[in-house]
């Protein structure tokens, strides 16, 4: 392997100390919020270390302590031999930090950003032309040096951030959630670059909320609520789950009912839908008997599957939630005039000369869970907004329950429920006032209003929080409240815009339990997501890329497209990359 010029001489031989970062008993709190609790760990040179955990686990806080941007309340951190508090200046030289949000100037070009960054580091830009060329080559940003940073795609922004973080030849590279907002193709590129850097002896820390990313790391620090749950290679953790993961194959249309039943079994710790199948994790020491009986009853095959990192994480937290949705239990089955709940024909949206959605056509059946999938900027959001009447199409039409939403009367709008990204609740109103507002705005009469609100409080166990502000609620409760508000008027069609982004896997499972329950009652669900494994819950997935619909099928069928001899059981992410690459080839040959 060629030597990498961005890495300063780092100790490589076995005799020298290979520890890059030593964290000892670190505590950090912000007011009453305990962000990190008595955390001790070591990070090695020449290794990719994953800092893994859901939002609010303390990942960013730890990153900022490592770079000397925050001072811990207790404990010590040593990075490359320097104490982060006492030798703060040395830390900035020894470490490269790429913050979560794009930390560069959007109104400067790629080159101007790099120059500015170099100058801030006190480097002579004229003498470092070689370094610039190497960095541009390494990040494949060479052709885009004159482009404004604000006009770059999510993936390219991350690469530019990486180039700048590498400028000072750091010994330790800290990347805060580099995978967020980056499509799977660019993500692979980032992995490749990080691999090259660790091969040269650099210590790289990659923080992530995606548990599937953790599996790619050589070592993992698993955080939850400020506490270190696990420190070591991910395989070590998943190995503990050996022989506990199973899949009920090809359950088909009954899979939601089967999942509910499985989750209610005392021997089952966790379960998710995977395409047409149901993936089950047994409790520690539990027998396979019960789940085998369930498989026999449903007349499906039960196969053992390798454990995943996510299984292990859920297991560490004591298993997932139960399978019955108290919410869906209370609903009566949905009656619709037609079998088609949502449809769009030749849907097109242009903003100036930019086409955000290009000629998209599909139909969604009643009771279907329909996913819209695509990288950022693919037109997912625009299409979604046209479907629920928030944007007017430039061309074509969209219908919900037989109503054209462009001419949407209150009547049509009252048939759909909508839950926006990051649960848009009124933070100035209390929990009860939020519920009352959504009941009022959907014109429920005072008797129904009172009854429904009580019902929602009961179903979602909100009674202890009624006068609290939504912002003070734990994430899981906040999500329940948002769902309660969206469902107050019992809509037959529910629109969910990235409903689980930034939510921990347990809360996400609870959410999907409700969604599955609703779908079984005949509620049609439209959902956008960038979690690839979440797409597995959908009956059908519409894949959008560069404003076009490039594929529409069941998750299993999409995965089969990407299957080959080396990859007999591809993941949704593999399927996505495969589809995007073939779409790119097609578009290129068309041009």
């Amino acid at each position, binding site marked *: 392997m060629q030597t990498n010029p961005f890495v300063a001489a780092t100790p490589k031989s076995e005799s020298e100390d290979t520890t890059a970062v030593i964290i000892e008993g670190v505590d950090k709190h912000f007011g009453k919020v305990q962000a990190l609790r008595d955390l001790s760990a070591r990070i090695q040179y020449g290794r990719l270390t994953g800092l893994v955990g859901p939002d609010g686990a303390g990942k960013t806080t730890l990153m900022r302590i490592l770079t000397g941007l925050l001072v811990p309340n207790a404990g010590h951190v040593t990075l490359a031999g320097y104490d982060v508090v006492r030798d703060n200046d040395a830390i900035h030289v020894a470490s490269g930090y790429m913050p979560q949000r794009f930390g560069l100037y959007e109104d400067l070009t790629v080159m101007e950003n790099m120059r500015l960054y170099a100058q801030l580091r006190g480097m002579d830009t004229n003498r470092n032309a070689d370094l610039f060329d190497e960095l541009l080559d390494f990040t494949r940003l060479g052709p885009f040096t004159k482009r404004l940073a604000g006009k770059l795609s999510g993936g390219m922004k991350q690469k530019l951030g990486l180039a700048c973080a590498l400028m000072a030849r750091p010994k330790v590279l800290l990347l805060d959630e580099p995978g967020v907002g980056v499509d799977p193709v660019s993500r692979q590129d980032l992995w490749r670059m990080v691999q090259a850097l660790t091969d040269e002896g650099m210590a790289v820390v990659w923080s992530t909320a995606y548990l599937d990313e953790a599996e790619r790391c050589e070592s993992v620090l698993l955080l939850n609520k400020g506490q270190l749950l696990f420190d070591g290679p991910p395989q070590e953790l998943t190995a503990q789950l050996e022989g506990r993961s199973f899949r009920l194959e090809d359950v088909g249309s009954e899979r939601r009912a089967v999942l509910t039943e499985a989750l209610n079994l005392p021997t089952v710790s966790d379960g998710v839908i995977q395409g047409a199948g149901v993936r089950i994790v047994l409790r520690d020491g539990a027998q396979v008997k019960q789940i085998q009986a369930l498989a026999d009853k449903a007349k499906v095959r039960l196969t053992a599957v390798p454990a995943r990192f996510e299984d292990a994480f859920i297991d560490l937290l004591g298993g997932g939630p139960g399978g019955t949705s108290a919410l869906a239990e209370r609903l009566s089955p949905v009656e619709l005039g037609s079998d088609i709940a949502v449809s769009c024909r030749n849907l097109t949206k242009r903003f100036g000369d930019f086409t955000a959605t290009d000629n998209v056509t599909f139909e969604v059946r009643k009771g279907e869970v329909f996913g819209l999938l695509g990288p950022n900027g693919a037109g997912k959001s625009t299409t979604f*907004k046209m479907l*629920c*009447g*928030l*944007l*007017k199409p430039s061309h074509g039409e969209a219908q919900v329950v037989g109503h054209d939403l462009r*001419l949407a*009367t*209150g*009547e049509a*709008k*009252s048939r*759909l429920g*909508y839950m*926006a*990204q*990051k649960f*848009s*609740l*009124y*933070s*100035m*109103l209390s929990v009860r*006032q939020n519920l*009352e*507002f*959504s*009941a*009022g*705005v*959907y*014109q*429920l*009469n005072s008797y129904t209003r009172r009854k429904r609100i009580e019902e929602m409080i009961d179903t979602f166990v909100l009674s202890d929080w009624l006068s609290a502000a939504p912002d003070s609620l734990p994430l899981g409760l906040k999500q329940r409240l948002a769902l309660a*508000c969206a469902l107050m008027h019992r809509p037959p069609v529910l*629109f969910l815009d990235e409903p689980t982004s930034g939510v921990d896997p347990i809360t996400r499972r609870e959410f999907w339990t409700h969604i599955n329950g609703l779908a079984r009652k005949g509620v049609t669900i439209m959902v956008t997501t960038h979690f690839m494994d979440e797409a597995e819950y959908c009956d059908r997935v519409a894949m959008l890329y560069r404003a076009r619909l490039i594929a529409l099928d069941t998750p299993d069928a999409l995965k089969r497209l990407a299957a080959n001899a080396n990859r007999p059981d591809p993941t949704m992410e593999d399927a996505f990359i495969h589809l995007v690459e073939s779409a790119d080839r097609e578009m290129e040959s068309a041009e």
Partner: protein
Amino acid sequence: MLTFTLSFTRLRAQFIKEVLLVLRDPRSRMVVFVPPILQLLVFAFAATLEVSNVDIAVYNQDAGRWSHELVQRLDSSRFISHVRHVDSQRQLHELIDRGEVIAALAIPMDFSRTIAAGESGRAQVLVDGRRSNSGQITVAYLSTIAAEVAAEVTPDAQVSIPVLVRHWFNPNLVYRWFIVPGLAGILALFSALLITSLSIARERELGTFDQLLVSPTSTSEIIISKSLPALAIGTLLGLFMVSAGVFLFGIPFTGSFGLLLASLVLFILSVVGIGLMISAVSMTQQQAILGAFAIGVPAVLMSGFATPVENMPEVLQWLAQAIPLTHFLIIVEGSFLKAMPPSDILASMWPLAVIALATLTMATVFVRGRLQ
């Protein structure tokens, strides 16, 4: 199909929400409660065009009767707190340089002698040009005092005072009589403008605006529910300033209260329309606040509050007619001091009604336009 449907249930829910949002949001609360108190204190007590509590330096080289008379009158004058006696021209200059006195009077040695000889005495007045406005007013006061002395010198002679001004409606030219009624309009303008311009922008930041748009509620309902709290608060603030004028400052209220109230409501409705337009195009609350000030401050400057509309270039005069505050100022000042007849008030009310109709219609179009 017409989307102008109103539902009482939906309106009620939204109205309660709006009121709670305005009262619970610290930013809105500040907009509502801080400016009235602050403006009341600042404008009514501090910002005044009258000159008072100033110091004057006197370098009196004359020992005669008339210079003595003049200095005594200065001493007893209400607008001067201290008369500083100095012994040299240099000290005089220093006091002015250091800003300790606003004006200085140098009386020459032959002052009394000249007057006794039947000629007119001359004294030098130095004024601090850095405070030109107050300086000029001080000079005017000093000339008055000099004229009084002159009248004593020749009591029989017809002292020629070129102009005798009699100020109608405000005979003593009490500055507050003019400023407080105007403040009622300005306060109501800014509170209504800020409350409404924050309203949609706030919901957009929270992400709840989309939620509102997908619900069956109509644009008209959104506009109405967002107008009402601003209307209520703006009207109350306007009335608060009016009563402060009547009861605290004792300004004679001579017009019709009913007509004033009706014009206040029309005035605020027209401002609410402008505020909602700003809010509809703002992506963040910060933009909304900047937008409100970018519109509000020029509106106040052009309304005739600071400078008469008639003195502006013709184009700006036309523009001033489109500013609701211009018309409201005429009404509120007329109601206080002039006992303005109802016909005159109505003449200023109908433009307010037209502006209100126009801005509210445009606000509806703007809000609906966000759906494009």
